[in-house]
């Protein structure tokens, strides 16, 4: 289906006129009018209505499409989504698709080196707050200038779990690579003005997204026009700029134009190679800057893999929904293998609080029960300040989880920062309350000295 990119924001009434007006309910809403309202809010997919004309579908999809187009790279399990963004500032909504970190491999590397890099990429992955932070794609670069080594590289990595970015400026080399990957939807990177049409025809033939690079804005816009002119809409922009400063400026211009001015010719995800830029910022840290300023795909070199974890933590931070603090389910959690003699600890349901506390408890080898109280996802300090940690909630979780039947004692250890609620919690629960330390790292010693002694 062709999406009308010209579609403007419509009122619910205007949208309603395009709907079948049968109130059949297939969309999940009782009336077509209700569906129209949800469409205008962008809260529901156009496809939920099975009876739309092609024209209506095109118009409505255009209206609900995010100002930064969503592009999918890779297929099936390997697919990653880039773009699909609605705002320039996360507080205005949130960011939808995390920046893809792509590891750069080139065809001058020998097989051992490639394998070694892949191993390091795997090792860079880690779990944090119930998410896996990892490298998401491989960017294959044709540094040799020849086809054979590039094809060998593609063969070598095509069965890895990563979607691929095929980066060469030579269309015939690109074709050979794409022939191997068939319908895997790699991102074809390397289109510049001089090879634009051959590259575009490859993207059409292999139905893969294409990225385009130009040194200045007018050339870039002309190139995007060309691609759209032949029906290519899965476009990724390689923004102009030779220095980190220039690229950050370009990325900002692209996002602002796409979001604020609805300038759809730049409403596409972006790819940057921060380590190739002229900059005095240490390589691993450039990634942080382009990530903060909207780059959808960031290509990093193998040497920086060992510095990647902080950058991936930054990505996790930026991607958090600012309207909803990330939280864990309130309830009773087991740490280690607790027995009826084990201590009972209490904390709030802010995910970071829970995560750090349980990590520390595990590292210290403590077996205990952990009561997690609903504070709307606020940390201990914040929930105390905001009066969101209620002694009644503590009581409720303890009753619902039947902790009293699991332990022989009646002592609850509360966080040091919750000290001023100790009396109230004691009154509400009927348990004796011990005020724990301010830092979770001091809990082991606390349990030894305070809890065990009694």
């Amino acid at each position, binding site marked *: 289906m062709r999406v009308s990119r010209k579609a403007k924001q419509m009122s619910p009434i205007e949208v309603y006129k395009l709907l079948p007006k049968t109130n059949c309910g297939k969309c999940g809403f009782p009336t077509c009018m209700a569906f129209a309202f949800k469409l205008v809010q962008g809260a529901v997919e156009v496809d939920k209505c099975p009876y739309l004309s092609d024209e209506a579908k095109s118009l409505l999809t255009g209206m609900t499409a995010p100002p930064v187009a969503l592009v999918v790279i890779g297929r099936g399990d390997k697919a990653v989504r880039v773009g699909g963004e609605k705002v320039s500032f996360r507080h205005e909504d949130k960011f939808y698709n995390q920046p893809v970190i792509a590891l750069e491999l080139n065809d001058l590397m020998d097989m051992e080196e490639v394998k070694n890099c892949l191993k390091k990429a795997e090792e860079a992955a880690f779990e944090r707050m119930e998410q896996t932070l990892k490298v998401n794609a491989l960017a294959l670069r044709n540094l040799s200038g020849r086809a054979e080594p590039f094809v060998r590289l593609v063969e070598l990595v095509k069965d890895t779990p990563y979607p691929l970015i095929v980066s060469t400026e030579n269309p015939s080399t690109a074709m050979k690579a794409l022939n191997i990957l068939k319908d895997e939807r790699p991102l074809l990177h390397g289109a510049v003005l001089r090879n634009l049409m051959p590259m575009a025809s490859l993207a059409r033939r292999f139905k893969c997204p294409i990225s385009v690079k130009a040194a200045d804005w007018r050339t870039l816009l002309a190139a995007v026009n060309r691609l759209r*002119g032949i029906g290519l809409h899965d476009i990724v922009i390689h923004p102009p700029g030779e220095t980190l*400063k220039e690229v950050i400026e370009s990325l900002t211009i692209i996002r602002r134009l796409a979001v604020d001015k609805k300038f759809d010719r730049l409403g596409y995800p972006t790819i940057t190679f921060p380590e190739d830029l002229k900059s005095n*910022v240490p390589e691993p840290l450039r990634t942080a800057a382009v990530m903060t300023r909207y780059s959808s795909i960031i290509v990093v070199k193998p040497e920086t893999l060992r510095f990647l974890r902080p950058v991936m933590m930054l990505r996790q931070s930026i991607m958090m929904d600012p309207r909803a603090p990330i939280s864990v389910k309130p309830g009773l959690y087991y740490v280690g293998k607790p027995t009826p003699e084990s201590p009972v600890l209490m904390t709030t349901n802010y995910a970071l609080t829970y995560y750090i506390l349980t990590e520390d408890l595990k590292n210290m080898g403590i077996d205990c029960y952990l009561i997690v109280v609903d504070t709307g996802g606020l940390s201990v300090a914040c929930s105390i300040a905001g009066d969101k940690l209620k002694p009644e909630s503590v009581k409720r979780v303890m009753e619902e989880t039947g902790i009293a039947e699991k332990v022989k004692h009646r002592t609850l250890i509360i966080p040091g920062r919750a000290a001023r609620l100790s009396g109230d919690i004691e009154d509400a629960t009927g348990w004796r309350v011990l005020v724990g330390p301010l830092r979770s790292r001091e809990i082991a010693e606390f349990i030894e000295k305070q809890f065990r002694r009694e």
Partner: protein
Amino acid sequence: MSGEKRGSKTRRSLEAIIADALNQLFKNLEDAEIELEGVEIEADELELEPIMQAIVSQIPKPVEVAKPAVKPLPERLLEAEFTPPVTEYPGSIVEVKIGATKSEGGTRSKTVVLGGETVPAFYTFEGLNPNPPVVSLDVFDTRIPLARAVRMEVKDVLDDPAEWAKKAVHKFGAEVVNLHLVSIDPLLKDTPPSEAAKTVENVLQAVDVPICVGGCGDPLKDLKVFEKVCEVAEGERILINSVTLDMDFKKVAEAVKRHGHAVIAFTSMSMDDARELNRKLYEVLPKEDIVIDTTTAALGYGLDYAFTIMERTRLAALMGDTELQHPISSGTTNAWAAREAWMKLDESKWGPRELRGPIWEVVTALTLLLAGVDYFMMMHPLAVKTVKQVIDRFTMGGVFDSEKYLNWVSSTF
């Protein structure tokens, strides 16, 4: 942007050749919608051979060179179509000057100006902000627990704040010294105000850059010390760090005003708190004496909140919120609160321990730099150096200088 007419002769002929070749190609594409618009090709951007190779390899039949080109391209069309997204901002940030030279009644040989922004940070396409962000270094008046990576850098000056300040300025490049009077804490040494003020005087004598003086966080003790410090530093226009909602801010503000200094209004991560404290301070102080700090959290430990509050604060100020139009200060040193910044961890996965702290500090700073921070309080020399270089490069737009390039990846620290 490269729009000048360079090598126009070469370009025209190349364009003709390419246009022809493209024309052929288009014919081979099924139901292609051809929308050709003005495409400019820079002659110096092109190398003839690869182009021809690329084109020829894709075209089944030889190109007929004599064919008329596709419809003439309106060369100016695109030029008119690309307008950078310039927003008009009704508000601007006040300028707060720190330090005073001899002619201004002080003894500093350098002063700094914070703020003055008229556009968001590094929206260089919208305008240039007048004052580059300033990087300052922390100096403590007593021994406090410091990460090993930091302690190693300052172990020779840990017991002498004046020497520490000298090192921060001359060796590490501090533009301002943040003296933290931690020892005044009643739970620590409970240093009396007069003695704390003496330390301030020593530091003022040791360095010629502006200084910022911080308390211990105890609202009552800080007030007493700040009053004394303001008095002894009269004329120097120091920056008092800080007033909070839970102290007698009016008394602090009065002392600041009486002796001609400036102050940091420090709040939780809340724009409402920042507005409330500013409103109260306005009763005593002019806007030009107030810097705000909405709290910095470490990378991985709430940096997203800190970033967003600062970004929102700055945008609101530029959009006309008169209670937030102040330079922003960041306690970037808080980056070290992240355990990953200093803990012993598997170095193959987390990077070398000596570099992790600086990385944490720099990533935290870089992120907040983009949110609009004007004043960075930092700790590790390498992080300071890096952030200063970023600021230089970003604000001056100078030529890339590989000599100055810090290569963290290949260097061994």
